[in-house]
């Protein structure tokens, strides 16, 4: 035991005595260190799955509420309910109330895709990356388009024959679109 302790002590001492060149320690940092490596186009493409409100990032493919209904029944209904209302997980469908956006002042209303989501493209982005919970990222583009169409139809935003694809999805006007405002809190005395 003592031998080990002595060896450790000698090692530490050795490092301390051996450190010379301290004049280099305070060197000015460079603009760039050159750490990391260039990303390849292929690895960017593999991970760059986000979809923006203008449709950027949407893949080829299409679906309608009719094609989506079968996918929904098979892969989504167990958690979200047969018609997107029953749960047990997040309620997806509902337009109540038809007028106004009373969620702040009235606790009775449940936010859904139909009454709260401002962008239809977000549905594609989220379902594609995170759903279904037990097999995330497993859906084909046509399945996702179909599910988006079914959800928009159930929320009475499109008809059951409307084709949803990379062109049409970005043009969908969601009921809650105009409701969102930037944060105006600034600290200071005023409570906002």
């Amino acid at each position: 035991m003592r031998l080990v302790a002595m060896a450790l002590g000698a090692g530490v001492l050795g490092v301390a005595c051996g450190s010379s060149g301290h004049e280099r320690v305070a060197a000015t940092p460079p603009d760039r260190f050159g750490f990391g490596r260039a990303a390849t186009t292929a690895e960017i493409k593999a991970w760059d799955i986000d979809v923006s409100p203008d449709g950027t990032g949407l893949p080829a493919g299409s679906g309608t509420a009719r094609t989506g209904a079968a996918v929904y029944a098979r892969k989504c209904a167990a958690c979200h309910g047969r018609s997107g209302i029953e749960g047990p997980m997040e309620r997806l469908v509902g337009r109540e109330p038809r007028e106004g956006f009373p969620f702040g002042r009235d606790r009775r209303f449940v936010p859904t895709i139909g009454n709260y989501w401002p962008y239809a493209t977000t549905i594609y982005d989220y379902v594609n990356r995170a759903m279904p919970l037990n097999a995330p990222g497993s859906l084909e583009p046509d399945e996702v388009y179909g599910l988006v169409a079914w959800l928009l139809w159930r929320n009475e935003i499109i008809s059951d024959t409307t084709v949803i694809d990379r062109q049409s999805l970005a043009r969908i006007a969601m009921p809650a679109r105009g409701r969102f405002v930037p944060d105006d809190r600034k600290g200071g005395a005023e409570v906002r």
Partner: protein
Amino acid sequence: MNHTPISRRALLARAVGAAGAAVLSRSGVAQTPAPSDPTKVPGRPLSDLGQRAAFERPRRVVAGIDQGISLTPLQDLSGIITPADLHYERHHAGVPTIDPHRYKLLVHGMVERPTVFDLEALRRFPSVSRIAFLECSGNGFSAYRDVKPELTPQLIDGLTSTSEWTGVPLATLFREVGIKPGAKWFLAEGGDAAVLTRSIPTEKGWDDALIAYGQNGEALRPEQGYPARLFLPGWEGNTSVKWIRRIEVADRPFMTREETSKYTDPLPNDTARQFSFVMDSKSIITFPAYPVTLPDKGWWEISGLAWSGRGRITRVEVSSDGGATWRPANLQEPVLSKCHTRFRSLWHWDGREALLMSRAVDETSYVQPTLDVLRKARGPGTFYHFNNIRSWRVRRDGTVVFGLEG
């Protein structure tokens, strides 16, 4: 140390014993054979990994399975640091297992040099450490929307924790990849099964954002984003994307689910506040608090935590008469920006019913509001950012319950 966790538990044991239900606090003690005289028997040998005293059993409260939360036992902690294994959790699809040797962070979009950093590269950059809180913006829900007497500090505000975070400033990586003119936002994406995404202004990246790989002196816990996470001091926890795998720089926000349908704040004027990143100033008394019972009147030290996402706490005031009068509490050094601050206030309890409150003031002169003031600004149905004053009612028999006023 006037009120270490064990003394609080002893108080609780006394109270529970008196009530005739002695189950709660006994378990940890009963299982541990302690010699009657520890000076007369040799102690345990050395070990390569320490563990808590067998008499101490702080635990998170878990709600949910893979999509839920677990809350930090604020009432069991002293000082400001949260032990890493008690840091609160909020996961959207469970805790991923990520091999550090295969980990990579991709930075692309409006950059001169799209780049992949592995963990070794991240750790080679000049590093910084800072002690800062991390808080879920849903913290305090029950103090605003689900008030009842039987609430503990943990159940009310356990979705906040403080750690020393170590990592590379995101600004360093921004310089490394060359942010193009016109870039205003970046998408932060996690490598978990939710592949969770948030849009963050590049301004925050240049300011004080970290890619953190260290927590309280060791590697991040898996629950906190191992091997690397984004850490945005003072901002709602959801934006500090864990297990970060990708940053895409852009000229506009991406409008992800977590910044549209979630983490937005409906207001009474039929709008919803979006990108409400900063956590407003807040405080909570963690002792005395439910379910503790004060066994007798006399001197007690009121203790709690205060914090603000906008900077330092400059003042905490304490009231024992429901807000009629206030007196300044002592702030324990260090008082750090965007960090839990421990406050203490000596109190002589006269045995009559008391309503204890604390209110925090930060360096912008923001004063933690009453429930009425906050409800007027935000509406009763708002979903996040519940920083109203919390109160505790001390009854004549010494029992303490969450106060419904405040």
